[in-house]
């Protein structure tokens, strides 16, 4: 069973719909017990990173997410909060990834970064099995995770940023696989089929 974390932010239903369409066994939850009982975790996030972290604290999930060894997929803000810090609301993150998120420069590019952008594959990873290089995924973000040692894919919006990351059992995608057509479903399916 996949624990689909719902901390009250909004896009859980869309991720659930996508999981349903690929026949995944999931449970929408925010309980520590369900997460402990699950095989994998999907953590979708939208809105503000500071708000997300606050909710995780209230739900008593911060330490659990930090120490558990199961595969976890963070989506959008769910990936951003894996960083040490977020410039958004100047909040502390989970500290799984090094560094801080940053904001796109509104004097140079349109912010939010909204729409379909190409994803360049940097390192081979099962998450992108069967997915061609440089195809489009859907984004809606004002903040980004700068490129770091764990980036496995990148996109460009004024600068190159992390489109996807992988560190140990942690996976993150900045784009919305649940809103990225067939390619997005493929990424979700690849995560689900991880051994």
């Amino acid at each position, binding site marked *: 069973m996949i624990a689909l974390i719902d901390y009250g932010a909004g896009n859980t239903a869309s991720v659930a719909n996508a999981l349903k369409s690929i026949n995944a066994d999931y449970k929408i939850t925010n309980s520590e017990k369900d997460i402990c009982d699950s095989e994998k975790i999907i953590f979708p996030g939208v809105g503000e990173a500071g708000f997300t972290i606050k909710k995780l604290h209230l739900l008593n999930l911060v330490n659990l997410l930090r120490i558990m060894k199961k595969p976890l997929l963070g989506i959008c803000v769910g990936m951003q909060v894996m960083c040490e810090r977020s410039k958004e609301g100047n909040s502390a993150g989970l500290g799984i990834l090094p560094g801080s998120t940053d904001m796109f420069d509104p004097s140079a590019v349109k912010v939010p970064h909204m729409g379909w952008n*190409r994803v360049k594959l940097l390192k081979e990873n099962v998450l992108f099995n069967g997915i061609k290089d440089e195809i489009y995924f859907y984004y809606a973000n004002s903040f980004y995770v700068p490129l770091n040692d764990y980036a496995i894919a990148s996109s460009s919006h004024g600068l190159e940023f992390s489109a996807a990351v992988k560190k140990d059992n942690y996976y993150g995608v900045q784009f919305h696989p649940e809103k990225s057509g067939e390619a997005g479903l493929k990424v979700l399916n690849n995560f689900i089929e991880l051994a």
Partner: protein
Amino acid sequence: MVSKRIIPCLDVKDGRVVKGTNFVNLRDAGSAVELSERYYREGADELVFLDITASLEKRKTLLQLVKEVAEVIRIPFTVGGGISQLNDIESLLKAGADKVSLNTSIVKNPDLIKQSSKQFGSQAIVAAIDVKFVNGGYEVFIKGGTEPTGIEAFEWCRKTVDLGAGEILLTSMDRDGTKEGYDLRFLNELVKLVSVPVIASGGAGTKEHFFEAFQDADVEACLAASLFHYQILNIMELKKYLKQNGVNVRL
């Protein structure tokens, strides 16, 4: 680079597409869900639903529609039409909508932009703005274009962004329904003025009109309704045309 977006708009009433009675290829011509799925398959980048249901049942039917649409399409969609409460925004987003568009309600209560973008993120809040050229200047109209506000249009656009809107859906009332092309003069200035993506609406009649809006005004997205409903333009063919002419679109 983010690709330019093509967005079909569906006017819905009680869960049915209002202008959609003449379709050839759909069994249930008026079903918003069925039309959404067709657009998704044809390569639409996003969809916009404008609910014009007037009854008290509005909220229920709209929520039901959002749930059904979210089950069948895997691209983002925006819902608008008479949304004025934070609670309504929350239920629509939770039902599967990615964004809400706010029009009359934010003119009456600009603080709603601030509150909603703070709570749900700017990326979920679209300022829908209807403008008309009046007495040498552009004026904002509300209530489906029936009521003038006396508000200068560029000033209002800028203010919605300052308050937290993540996108502007700009409809030119002068061009709407004319098929004479988007209001490039206004759009050009607006794109330079604001830092958020601008969606052009009102006036599309040919594929060249889309090209002009992307090329000359540099808008991020173009919206159209009847052109797609009546299959005057096929989305995939339109996108291929744009691509051939150097516009960065997703094929």
